[in-house]
């Protein structure tokens, strides 16, 4: 596989050499790997930002979005980590899902194989209950869980080992009780189950709960962020209730390790400018995408912290 790739790459390079030597970056299309299928949240985010990054990279920069879905993102992320570090392959990475995979120790890459460029989105997790539920707060839920003979079921949109599952594990440890996770494997089914009252409670990301919560069809009883979200200021955080559960899904852009520093800086700047583009900002605000820009160094620190946290959790309660 790798050999074949390198043959094509060499041939390609040889043909290209006829043209210019190292011209101004980017002199050819940049490949942006998305580890999920077309149409998913990450894919739409990638295709949207790509257009504005092209604008701010200048010249006739072109970014092609390439979907490499599968294995919960692992296939695409492996492709990013193992790509040639020439700045022409970048990819979207989703923390803490990517950290969790690495911590489990089965991936072919380590976090150090990736060069973080910038973070774009941070979407905190939330715990929601149906509107008819008798639980008005986290305290109600925990009290009920402590009294119940069988653990209370909490639906999660992810699979076992997803950030939500891990958050749930942390929460039950801090609260000194037990819940039974029910894995729905996707946001739409879990949302439907909680709306229809088929599960007593569920976890999902804030942006996924926002509209139905505003309409009053579900109640958000806990947000897993450090502070209340500006999009839903009435919803209390886990910290306010005394449980230090801060978990969210982030989407950022990374390159393989070893990309020249000037190219990282070019990309970082283009992303920053793209996120400030009025047209993009307007669309993002309308869609209520929780944008959170982190520059390369901050993004790296954020990823490192996620890895350390997960390593601690993995030692205490392995999720698989």
């Amino acid at each position: 596989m790798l050999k074949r790739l390198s043959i094509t790459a060499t041939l390609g390079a040889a043909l290209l050499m006829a043209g210019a030597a190292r011209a101004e970056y980017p002199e050819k299309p940049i490949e942006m790997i998305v580890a999920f299928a077309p149409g998913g949240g990450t894919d739409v985010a990638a295709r949207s930002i790509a257009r504005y990054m092209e604008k701010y990279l200048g010249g006739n920069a072109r970014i092609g979005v390439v979907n490499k879905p599968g294995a919960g993102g692992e296939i695409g992320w492996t492709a990013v980590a193992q790509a040639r570090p020439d700045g022409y392959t970048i990819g979207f990475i989703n923390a803490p899902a990517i950290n969790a995979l690495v911590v489990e120790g089965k991936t072919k890459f380590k976090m150090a194989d990736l060069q973080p460029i910038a973070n774009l989105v941070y979407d905190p997790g939330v715990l929601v209950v149906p509107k008819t539920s008798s639980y008005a707060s986290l305290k109600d839920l925990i009290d009920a869980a402590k009294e119940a003979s069988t653990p209370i079921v909490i639906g999660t949109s992810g699979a076992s080992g997803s950030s939500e599952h891990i958050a749930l594990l942390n929460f039950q440890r801090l609260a000194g009780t037990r819940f039974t996770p029910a894995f729905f494997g996707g946001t739409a089914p879990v949302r439907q189950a909680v709306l229809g009252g088929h599960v007593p409670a569920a976890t999902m990301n804030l942006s996924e709960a926002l509209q139905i919560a505003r309409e009053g069809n579900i109640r958000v009883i806990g947000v897993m962020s450090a502070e209340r979200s500006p999009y839903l200021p009435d919803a209390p955080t886990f910290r306010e209730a005394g449980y230090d559960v801060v978990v969210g899904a982030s989407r950022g852009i990374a390159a393989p390790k070893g990309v020249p520093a000037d190219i990282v800086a070019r990309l970082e700047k283009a992303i920053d400018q793209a996120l400030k583009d009025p047209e993009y900002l307007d669309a993002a605000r309308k869609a209520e995408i929780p944008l959170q820009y982190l520059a390369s160094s901050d993004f790296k620190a954020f990823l490192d912290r996620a890895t350390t946290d997960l390593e601690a959790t993995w030692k205490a309660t392995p999720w698989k």
Partner: protein
Amino acid sequence: MIDALLHAIPLVFAPMNILAMVIGLVAGLIVGCLPGLTVVTGLAVLIPLTFGLDPLFALGMMAGMYNGGSYGGAIPAILMRVPGTPASVATVLDGYKMTQQGKAAYALQVALLSGVIGSVLSSVALILLSPPLVSFSLLFGPIEYFWLGILGLATVSSLLGDDLPKGLIACGIGLLIGAVGQDISNGTERFTFGQLDLLDGFSAIVLLTGLFAVPPVLQIVEEAVKTGMSGDKLKLHRQGSALSQWRFFTPVWIRSSIIGIVIGILPGAGGSMSSFLAYNEARRVARNPETFGHGNPEGVAASECGNGADNAASLIPALALGIPGSGVAAVILGGLLVHGLRPGPQLFREHPDIVYGFMLQFLATSFLLAIVGGLAATRIFGQVLRLPRIVLAPVILLFVTIGVYSVNNSLFDLWVLLGVGLVGYVLERLDYPSAPIVLGLLLGPMVESQLRLALTISGGNAAALVSTPIAIVLALLSAAILLTPAWRLLRQRRGAPA
């Protein structure tokens, strides 16, 4: 509502927006008829381009693409036995037989008309019935989905073919293939052999394409026919016109549309299930069920009508609740969001002209499809059949290869395609039916995961499975479907000696 509809009409029929709908339809036809490319891909590419455009222009393209794509899948299914989308698999069963019998143009016309009727009725349901249908869809939890899956699998009983054990084996093969991949509730990797590519299981579109498209390629080479179909067989005259036989088709259309709409509003059930259930129902009530699978136009009508009726209906929970009923609806939801249209009941209050405009666009594109699709299918795509048949073999293979590759951008999938294709060829030559494999493959994972979810939620109490009225109804329906062929057999046996 009436006010909003009246307001929306001039907006929908503004020249620019009609143009948008036609562009969407044509693009949808193209992505739909190419195996491996789906409407989801088309929309994902389209949406970022619609930033800053007038919402109705963008939504018109989306509506057109959805309706165009769902019919587009039927074109290669009928002409070449290659289902363009999973939802058109049931169309292959009778559609391709009709082509072999020289009735390609008629089959396409039946498919188009049925698809149009399905999507028109579905759009009407979307416009008129959104609120009550939404509350119905919320009654479905894991228990109900489990039974819905069982109901789908029960339709296998009418697709098993003449040799019962072989039909059951085919279904078992599908179920087994469906079990490959990571078990989401505990991370167990089932039958993946350490292959990362298998962690999510085989992708259905790759398997379906292999199963249906590769065997005919081999067969064409074997037969080595060096002439093409004569142009006459692509002309409609003397093949009958579906339009003038509306009395004959109407019962099929009504039943299939209802099935499609009901399945459509249930998030996660999806188009392929609509078309199979509709096909089965048409066959179950037919006086001559044995002609199904041998070129019965009712089979094509049922499948395509069910498929078309699924479209707009799947947007009902998406628009009213923000729960997408299908992959396509999910992407359309994303498209609505970038235009600042937040789904939910408030959407109907805050942007009535856009919501009803969008719904009307669904209706309008359904009618436009009749024109655009009719022209495209027979005038353009049909002409491909005039090529010498032997030249078609590599052509099919080329499109299938690139389509399958582009699903996951993975060379691994090409080898899966070949492997499945060769097994599919053997199965076909040994008279194992292929439809049960498809159903097993698509519904097996749903049945298993929903059963386990239901048991997790009920704390392992199996009695919970029949604890709701809908669950009981679905269970009884499944039993009825399973027993119909047996009952018919019994009646024939009793009737025979007399």
